[in-house]
């Protein structure tokens, strides 16, 4: 389906990433935003609030983030595309209901404009330390999709993509932007509505009496219905069977055997399988110069723009460096990393944290190559010289490391007067 021209603000703009994301949501047909103000994501909610009443979309500022996410889930079941926008601490508050969303297979989008953490951290500066949280932050097992834009233009494009993925797989999709992208003002081109392809929700078409909310076909994604259409839905966050009914002994007795035996009927495992099995369709990567590369820089989001410069510097020196940029961070491109690991000297992973995605790279390379992490605590982005240095080191290294090697950045040297790890005998 094409986008509705009324929702698309076609034109060329000079706007920041937050606003681009809001416009992307409108273009994708998002009709509900439940939000709570938090730096640095507020500009997105403000932009949405300005446009919403004119296109029949609703904006509500709820009393807290827990309420915001809950209202988004409700709106999605009422049949509208819905989203929320937040940042680190708010994201943490949403964790319980992200779990509910995943368990009830509710399509929705969360935009997380990441900032330096933990806790309140540095609200007005960048960070990328919520990556693992987006996959593991709620209790129990589930899988999500996470995308990482690196510019306001991608903020727009990926928001549309996020809605499409959410509708196709009935899963929470996280748009993991960061403060830099959110507050960076750049040219954003919003195409004509006819050029924006939208995924529509797959609604159930069969007989009413036969509908089961969690009965699935080969794609593992069950078709959906709207609340209020007379399907007698029972949607619960408790473990449920195909028909959505909770699997519980009626009196809720603390009886392990009973509860245990019944959980065989549970549809929980599909929550992970529907993503894991469709992984190849979901994953998108940007690869450059990988064919002849000895060293591959792995990055995502804003930091890939810094990494490009370092790669450029190294290439000019004649080092064979490739660049692998993760567009979808979750699910993780396991196979591609494993394949590459077999033939290169090392991965250089750059991210604005002290090691999150690097552990995934480490896992997927099965000990076949060296892994170097160029960490950064947040507050600013890497110095490209650090990345360049790490690339050079990896290209010339003969030794095989055990585990992830943490590169000592110039920032660490200047703050601690050297490498902390060396100082404490590691």
């Amino acid at each position: 389906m094409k986008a509705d021209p009324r929702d698309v603000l076609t034109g060329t703009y000079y706007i920041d990433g937050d606003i681009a994301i809001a416009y992307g949501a409108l273009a994708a047909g998002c009709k509900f935003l439940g939000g709570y103000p938090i730096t640095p994501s507020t500009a997105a909610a403000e932009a949405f609030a300005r446009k919403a009443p004119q296109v029949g979309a609703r904006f509500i500022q709820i009393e807290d983030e827990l309420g915001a996410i809950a209202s988004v889930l409700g709106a999605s079941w009422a049949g509208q595309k819905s989203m929320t926008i937040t940042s680190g601490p708010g994201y943490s508050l949403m964790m319980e209901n992200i779990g509910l969303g995943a368990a009830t297979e509710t399509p929705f989008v969360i935009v997380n404009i990441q900032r330096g953490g933990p806790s309140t951290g540095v609200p007005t500066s960048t960070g990328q330390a919520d990556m693992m949280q987006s996959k593991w932050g709620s209790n129990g097992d589930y899988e999500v999709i996470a995308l990482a834009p690196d510019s306001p233009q991608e903020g727009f494009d990926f928001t549309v993509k996020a809605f499409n993925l959410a509708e196709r797989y009935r899963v929470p999709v996280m748009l993991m932007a960061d403060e830099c992208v959110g507050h960076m003002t750049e040219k954003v081109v919003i195409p004509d509505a006819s050029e924006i392809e939208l995924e529509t929700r797959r609604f159930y078409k069969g007989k009413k009496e036969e509908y089961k909310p969690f009965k699935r076909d080969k794609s593992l994604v069950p078709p959906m219905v709207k609340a209020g259409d007379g399907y007698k839905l029972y949607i619960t966050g408790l473990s449920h069977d195909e028909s959505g009914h909770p699997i519980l002994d009626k009196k809720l007795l603390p009886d392990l055997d009973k509860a245990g035996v019944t959980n065989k009927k549970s549809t929980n495992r599909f929550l992970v399988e529907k993503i894991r099995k469709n992984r190849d369709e979901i994953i998108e990567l940007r690869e450059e110069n990988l064919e002849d590369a000895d060293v591959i820089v792995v990055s995502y989001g804003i930091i890939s723009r810094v990494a490009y410069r370092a790669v450029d510097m190294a290439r000019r020196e004649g080092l064979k460096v490739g660049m692998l940029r993760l567009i979808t961070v979750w699910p993780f491109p396991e196979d591609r990393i494993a394949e590459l690991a077999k033939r290169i000297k090392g991965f250089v992973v750059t991210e604005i944290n002290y090691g999150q995605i690097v552990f995934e790279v480490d896992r997927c390379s099965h000990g076949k190559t060296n892994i170097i992490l160029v960490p950064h605590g947040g507050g600013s982005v890497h110095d490209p010289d650090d990345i360049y240095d790490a690339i050079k080191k990896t290209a010339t290294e003969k030794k095989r490391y055990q585990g992830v090697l943490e590169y000592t950045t110039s920032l660490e040297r200047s703050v601690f007067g050297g490498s902390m790890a060396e100082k404490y005998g590691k």
Partner: protein
Amino acid sequence: MKAVENIFLKGKHTLSGFEACAEGALSAGCRFLGYYPIRPSFEIIERFINRCSDVDGVFVQMEDEISALAAVLGASWTGRKSMTVTSGPGFSQMMEHVGLGVMLETPCVIIDVQRSGISEGLPNAVGGGDIMQARWGSHGDYEIIALAPNSPLEMFELTVRAFNFSERFRTPVVILSDVVIGRKKEEINIPDQKDIKIKKRKYYKGKKEDYLPFKYDEKDLIPPMVDIGQGCRFHVTGLTHDERGYPVMSDSCQEWNVHRLVNKIRLFSDQIIEVEEDQTEDADVVIVSYGATSLDAIKAVKQARDEGIKAGHLRLVTIWPFPEKRISELARKIDAFVVPEINYGQIFYEVERCSRGGAETLFVHHASSQVGQSADILKSIKKARGNNK
């Protein structure tokens, strides 16, 4: 009020894991409990409440889990050892304050009685799906300590140890327990109170006016603490702060602050990590397990050995920090790891990572209904051996 020495249990007692946990907390010196009731963790709370007036403890039932952990953090700064008790969904709500606890370096203990499944799941069934959440659940970078007991006695001992770790490293410590261990009743031998090692909080000893809340000790990267009301009149904030505790919004301050927070655990992980190994010296296949699944793993190892398969068992007592080195070491010697978990793969990924291609890693999904059964694990052991022969 009873004389202090008579308050603590000692000698042989038949206790459930939950009761042992509450006793452990009392013995460790826990004097504050902030909670919100959630199945199936309530038994710990009940035991603690009934015992705590004997020791001048305080408990408060807050309006939700968010405030429960907030109150615990506040109470910890008054010098009382504090804890909260919760379960899956409640733990999810606490995530923001786990981050605050880390940032303000507040010692406290969170007891998470895992239940099955995502969201509300199966409230009464055993689960193991919060393992990664304990490590990664809050935003931003941090390291955490998490322990997984597998018997009522360990519920006691590890609760004590959790308090010790939290005081030693000034960080929230999570106990990842479950109902199988919690409801199991056993006769356990509780040591005399004076034989239980209690780690004292590292207090600041200098002049009051010179106190800087985050001026850390070069030796162990931990800043000494003071209590509220001692007259040091300090300020602390969840914002990125310098050693005075004042917010400073710069990348070098962030580096100074957060890199240390991560490294105060990462670089000293040897002092924390504990694993229990059984017959791993000559093993071809090693089962890596923790908590409830370890009981089945023990059975499976025995069965496998009976059939002449060289199986071994490595039980994670400390889950976080992960015993990376030991797994890597083993991976080079053995053919395969088998990781049974009551989830769809969490610690499995860590084992796979740390084995670095040295050994095959097999995952066994252990449904909560399968707790107490070792057949699937045994099957995987055989499969692992088959693959490598």
